[in-house]
């Protein structure tokens, strides 16, 4: 059995670890709240935009054509992987990496030239470790993505898509389903699904005045919905990261506390053993003298 002093030393260091993880858990909780509010704030916009696009698509008719809807034979695809710059958040980064790897393989099997963009240091490094060298690793979008930051990326993709340089854009990120569930998903953001397919039919139709025409408004809105989709992915990822870190740090703190309990018990026991040994030595010694 280890000496009581050594056990005491270990208990102390575990206590320090518990303090750190506890703090990190609290920070993650505070950040989660903020990220969650931001993700929720974007929701009315998304809902309204989706509904509006559905309505316009109906008005524009089924023969409406737009470059973003058109499915051309794909040759080059872009895969975005969104995760975080920091670790200590459980399986958050590796789940995204796994999803991205699967998607990457799928695209390769379809004989596409795949360009990989990693957002977050972690996912970039993990992909590189898996022998998929990301064409770019961006670390500037931290846990508080702004629309302007994400928009730069989205606009660039849209522009290249319009120019015919890329034919498909997929994004791997962690979707925030609820505080208890976040799943790594891969979604295609370009080309768009035909909006009429997903729009629920609304009840009585009103005769809207379109200014300018429904087709023109639609062609203004479709790129917006792509940009929004990407922004939503970043927001979801930010919320999921904090949730994952909260959970990871909670279990780390719990583990540390368990360990402290065990170590304390071990310390007490070994101290008692030591005392017993010393006592019996003294008693043995005095008995020998009699």
């Amino acid at each position, binding site marked *: 059995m280890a000496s009581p002093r050594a056990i005491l030393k270990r208990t102390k260091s575990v206590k320090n670890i518990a303090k750190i993880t506890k703090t990190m858990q609290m920070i993650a909780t505070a950040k989660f709240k903020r990220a969650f509010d*931001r993700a929720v*704030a*974007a929701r*009315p*916009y*998304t809902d*309204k*935009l989706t509904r*509006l696009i559905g*309505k*316009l698509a109906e008005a524009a008719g089924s023969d409406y054509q737009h470059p973003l809807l058109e499915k051309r034979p794909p040759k080059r695809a872009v895969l975005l992987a969104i995760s975080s710059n920091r670790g200590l958040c459980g399986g958050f980064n590796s789940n995204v990496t796994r999803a991205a790897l699967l998607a990457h393989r799928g695209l390769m099997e379809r004989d596409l030239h795949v360009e990989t963009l990693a957002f977050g240091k972690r996912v970039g490094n993990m992909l590189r470790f898996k022998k998929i060298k990301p064409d770019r690793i961006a670390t500037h979008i931290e846990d508080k993505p*702004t*629309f*302007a930051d994400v928009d730069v990326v989205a606009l660039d993709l849209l*522009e290249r898509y319009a*120019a015919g340089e890329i034919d498909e854009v997929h994004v791997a990120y962690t979707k925030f389903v609820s505080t208890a569930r976040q799943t790594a998903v891969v979604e295609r953001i370009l080309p768009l699904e035909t909006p009429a397919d997903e729009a629920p039919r609304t009840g009585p139709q*009103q*005769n*809207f*005045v*379109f*200014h*300018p025409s*429904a087709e*023109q*408004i639609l062609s*203004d*809105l479709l790129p*917006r919905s792509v940009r*929004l989709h990407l*922004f939503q992915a970043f927001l979801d990822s930010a919320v999921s990261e904090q949730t994952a870190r909260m959970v990871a740090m909670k279990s780390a703190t719990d583990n540390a506390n368990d360990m402290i309990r065990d170590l304390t018990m071990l310390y007490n026991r070994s101290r008692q053993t030591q005392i017993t040994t010393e006592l019996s030595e003294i008693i043995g010694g005095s008995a020998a003298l009699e």
Partner: protein
Amino acid sequence: MSDAKRMLTVSVVTPEGAAYEGAAAHVVAPAFDGEMAFYPTHAPLVGVLGFGELRVTRPDGEVEYFYLAGGVVQVADDEVSILAESVTPARKLDANVARKALDDALATPATGEVEIEARLRRADDARARLRVAARAAEHGHLTADQILSQPVQ
């Protein structure tokens, strides 16, 4: 209910959150080709918005000024929903920043259709910012009625 009492329900939302939610007597929005005003009982409409000033007149007559950078407006059943790219309260605009943005935009060399268009958009945005900022400084001490009676330049 008489028409005079009818109010609009206005919501101005951006991807980063709501900029205005609530009732309003009327709303003036910057359409892509000029200004558009909405009063209660307006016909259902969907329109594209450009860069410019968004004015929301609250039920008590106070006017709120915003700078709006592109979006869409939908009007139906006295509900005005504005989906905007970004919305800034007019008094938070900085004329100097806007002027610099305009100079930058004009100084950027642009070749080809796409680049020229992008430059035009940036310049339009900056010009509209300047205009709204100037107006915000001007009407800072005026009441809503006085502003409404002023001609729009």
